[in-house]
């Protein structure tokens, strides 16, 4: 059980403000999605949380301990970095062994079982792994680390659809068996949507949304049917996304699901459905 608190954190790179006065709390045992467009500041935030870089202002604590150069606090986190930071001449199994040295709770047996499941050859050197298998190898280490907080930065980079699905299932199964705080930073929102409990959206270095996924999805809904009838329904309403296929139209309406006009929809022969997180994300970050 570890709480991460970020208080008024600002990070500048020269004249560029990567993060601006961010304050947020990651509660224990939840799966978070950290979303944002390219260059929004997601990786900067994760690097700050794990002492890879230093903030210009503010502080970050884990269970009250400041993260900065604090081995006790840092031991609670495992951060799967997007880039490869492992020595390329080491074999996968050697890295498992060394990870065990630094994370005593690292479950080597589980790591080997996952390697078998994902068909990762542990006798291969890191340099000989493809982009996809490098991601798999790093994700396996993170999952087997048994840290209280696991952070994944673009965990499915280069993975095929089958492996991506296996990865999401493994995250859920790992979390169910041993609840922990999991933070997933990714661009593949559609795929990860069902895994997440809460979503954090960063735009141009500022926190714009921190809400449970259900609550965010409840702030919009989709309406679909014959285009002209959909347009009639939309009169006076705020909507964000339109998908038109011939005479058929589907639109995301930015209104609470409790406010939808069911009588009118019935009269116009339109169907309601749940809003998609990705569409809301695009609208919020545009």
């Amino acid at each position, binding site marked *: 059980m570890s709480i991460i608190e970020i208080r008024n954190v600002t990070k500048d790179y020269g004249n560029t403000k990567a993060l601006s006065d961010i304050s947020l709390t990651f509660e224990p045992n939840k799966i978070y999605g950290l979303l944002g467009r390219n260059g929004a500041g997601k990786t900067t935030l994760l690097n700050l949380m794990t002492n*890879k870089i230093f903030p210009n202002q503010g502080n970050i604590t884990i269970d009250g301990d400041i993260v900065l150069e604090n081995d006790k606090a*840092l031991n609670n986190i495992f951060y799967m970095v997007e880039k490869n930071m492992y020595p390329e001449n080491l074999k996968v199994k050697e890295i498992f062994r*060394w990870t065990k040295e630094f994370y005593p709770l690292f479950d080597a047996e589980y790591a080997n079982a996952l390697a078998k499941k994902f068909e990762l050859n542990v006798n291969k050197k890191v340099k000989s792994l493809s982009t996809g298998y490098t991601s798999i190898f790093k994700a396996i280490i993170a999952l087997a680390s048994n840290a209280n907080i696991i952070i994944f930065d673009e965990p499915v980079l280069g993975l095929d659809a089958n492996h991506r699905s296996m990865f999401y299932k493994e995250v859920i199964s790992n979390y169910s068996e041993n609840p922990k705080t999991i933070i997933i930073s990714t661009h593949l929102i559609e795929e990860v949507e069902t895994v997440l409990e809460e979503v954090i959206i960063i735009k141009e270095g500022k926190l714009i949304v921190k809400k449970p996924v259900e609550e965010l999805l409840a702030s919009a809904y989709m309406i679909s049917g014959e285009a002209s009838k959909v347009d009639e329904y939309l009169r006076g309403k705020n909507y964000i996304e339109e998908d038109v296929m011939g005479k058929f139209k589907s639109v995301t309406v930015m209104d609470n699901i409790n406010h939808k006009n069911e009588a009118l929809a019935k009269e116009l022969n339109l169907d309601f459905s749940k809003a998609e997180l990705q569409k809301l994300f695009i609208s919020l970050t545009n």
Partner: protein
Amino acid sequence: MNNTLKVSKYLFRDFKNALLIFYGIILAIAVLMAALFLNVISQESGNASFGGFGFSAFIFLFVSGLNCFKANFKFLQANNISRKRFYYANIITLLSISAFMALIDASMTKVLKLIMPYEDIVEQLYKNDLFFSSFIWSFALFTLAASAGWCITMLYYKCDKLMKTIISFAPVLLVILLVMLNNVTEGALGISIIKSLTVVLGFTNNNPYTAALSFLVATAGVLGLCYLLIRRIAIKD
């Protein structure tokens, strides 16, 4: 085992193969030298003398120092090890390897002396062939070499392109400046530098311990600079 020692253990792993190759080569050269002496030189003139393994160890440690930052820092950052712990673990590793290599160097000198006219650097410079003084002198010099290598690589890692260029040219500029100042002072600067070096290296009274102390003081200075560099070093791609 505490975490600092675990980090040291990892850093030792990095040195293991390089050390094996280095001593494999040194051993081969030593055997070749002994064979050459026993079979050729001793039968002809008998005036030849051998030496210089200590200098190779010095170069080896300097190069090892240059190579022991970037990859290790990245791997340890991947495992969320603090810079402070990496710093102390690296000092433990460099001191231990320097001590080990100084011990091998001093021991090898004693063994080679039994076979052929071999003089290590300490004997050549100070006319002193005591095992302990050879060990201490080599240890202090090796530590300085490894720390200097480590410091330089860290400096390059931390700096941007412009600063890297400035640092690369700094020694050349320093030499030019010293030569100019020496000309201005009509040679007085050069003489005082040589006099100071003679004192700090213990040449005035043939005392290798004075030099060892100077090397250790310089090492402490270099490691102090390393601490200032590493404490706020950020991870780079």
